């Protein structure tokens, strides 16, 4: 039937093909490469993590998570994320606001600076804080005399985590806010709104999806950070061990099933983050249609 012929099929029959479309064989090869790469690098390891964790049964895996040191690591990870993520949220919004809505000297420099944690190895981030607060530094002993312990304690871990995760929110918001410009804010103040009202009623609702997205990525990274935290935490078992550090310790002790049990909890978190991110992207694109 004539109605069964799609326009593309009709074009092919006439010997005409879309100039930017690949030939079927090329398409198959490209897709094949991408998929096998994904399977090799992502899917198989992920499956391996979960099968390893469940090798001795679900009960054993849960028991490994209920073990006091594991519980302490989970709690510490949650605590660090609970401090680092909100701080980075505030910083990210402030930085993005400043960069997107104002003109000032050194703006390009600030943008570069925000990207620094992306380009610096996390281990170096950890070392920076050792230098800043260690025994040989000026700040460390001074704070110590007041009983403030930075290194090998929660404050140090939080600092290192903040350092590593601070680009996420700002990076997400800067292009969004630049794109939106200052028009709506100007309209709000011309209608009598003060700065606070303008922020809560106009700016924030306009960036909420982008902000959530940034926070989600920031959180995933905060919970998963290994390098910087491992340098600064001292790895005191049950005290300064976060989940990623705990996984490594268990692994080094040949306690594979426990290591993979904790690891799969982290992996699960990543998967949940991905699903939420996908949902957000859906909302995001639907909201921005027609703008």
């Amino acid at each position, binding site marked *: 039937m004539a109605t069964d012929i799609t326009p593309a099929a009709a074009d092919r029959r006439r010997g005409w093909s879309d100039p930017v479309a690949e030939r079927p064989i090329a398409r198959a090869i490209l897709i094949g490469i991408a998929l096998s790469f994904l399977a090799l690098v992502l899917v198989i390891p992920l499956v391996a993590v979960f099968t390893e964790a469940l090798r001795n049964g679900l009960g054993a895996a849960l028991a490994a998570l209920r073990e006091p040191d594991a519980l302490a690591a989970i709690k510490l990870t949650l605590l660090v994320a609970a401090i680092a993520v909100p701080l980075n949220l505030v910083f990210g919004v402030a930085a993005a606001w400043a960069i997107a809505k104002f003109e000032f000297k050194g703006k390009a420099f600030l943008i570069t600076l925000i990207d620094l944690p992306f380009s610096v190895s996390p281990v170096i981030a950890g070392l920076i804080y050792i230098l800043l607060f260690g025994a040989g530094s000026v700040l460390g002993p001074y704070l110590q005399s007041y009983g403030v312990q930075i290194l090998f304690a929660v404050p140090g871990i939080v600092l290192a985590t903040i350092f590593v995760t601070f680009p996420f929110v700002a990076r997400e918001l800067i292009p969004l806010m630049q794109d939106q410009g200052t*028009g*709506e804010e100007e*309209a*709000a*103040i*011309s209608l009598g709104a*003060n700065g606070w009202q303008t922020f809560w009623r106009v700016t924030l609702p306009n960036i909420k999806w982008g902000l959530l997205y940034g926070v989600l990525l920031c959180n995933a990274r905060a919970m998963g950070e290994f390098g910087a935290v491992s340098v600064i935490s001292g790895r005191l078992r049950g005290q300064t061990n976060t989940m990623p550090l705990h996984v490594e310790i268990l692994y080094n002790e040949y306690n594979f099933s426990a290591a993979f049990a904790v690891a799969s909890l982290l992996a699960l978190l990543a998967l949940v983050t991905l699903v939420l991110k996908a949902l957000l992207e859906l909302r995001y694109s639907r909201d921005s*249609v027609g*703008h």
Partner: protein
Amino acid sequence: MELRIDKVRKEFDRFPALHETSLDIRSGELIALLGPSGSGKTTLLRLIAGLEQPTDGAIFFGDEDASHRSVQDRNVGFVFQHYALFRHMTVLDNIAFGLNVRPAAIRPPKREIERRVLELLDLVQLPGLEKRYPNQLSGGQRQRVALARALAIEPRVLLLDEPFGALDAQVRKGLRKWLREIHDQTGHTTVFVTHDQEEALELADRVVVMSQGRIEQVGTADDIYDRPTSPFVFSFIGESNALPIRIETGQAWLADRPLGIDVSGEADGPATLYFRPQDIEILTDPPGGGLAGPVAAQRRVAGTRHLELEIGGDRTRVEIEVPADYPIGETGRVAFKPKRWRLYRNDGASGN
């Protein structure tokens, strides 16, 4: 509300956007700021609103010096070029915004706010659209919502930045008439910025022509059109021709040809003659005076025909308007002389 702009100057990073400018706007007047881009018209409008701070000078709302008042305190209704509607709010919430953000003591009750919004929607002829979002409206509808939102706060002055700039020609014409009606109904002192002279001359009580950060002329459409005070205004408004001429022995000369126009009382020396294509008189029997040249091009403009003539030794092109059925003779030459014209000296003095 009367507005007085008193010796206001504005620089951005040392770059002068507006040179020292003074302007009085009468209460209830509809004023157009007209000029090409970069003429400082939008800067002046934003200075009035308080969205920019003047480098120098003062702006008075009535007798009160508003220069140091914040935007919020000036109580102006500002309609932005691209409307700047709050995209995440319904039309109702957009229009109600200015009332909702008032301090509790002077905020009308919720019911009253809603009643006012619906009333304004009627005024801007958009009843029933209060639940829509801005992206569900056409350009013309957004413009109306933006105006309703600005009117909701009962502003002392209404300021519009290129209000019809983003709309197509048909919608512009309709909205123009409608804005005039709203202005006459509400009686707000209104200032709008435009680069469209037709819009300015048709809509405004008085037009402020601006160029390069300066006011060139302030006047009614008749003043601006018939008595332009500078070459810029003459050439910016409507169509015009400019011919470099020479005044000598009480005559105006283009090279060695007398123009046959009355320049008695004008001092000798070089000058520029400005005239409009339609303000000419065709000379059928050239008696040695007037301007003449071969027709280089012609085009039909509605009911008339525009001829481009090459005048004089250096073939300066001028455009004149003739009846559509005007017969161009075999020679292809047309002779004419300007009926109405203005002379501008290179030092800026003018006369006719």
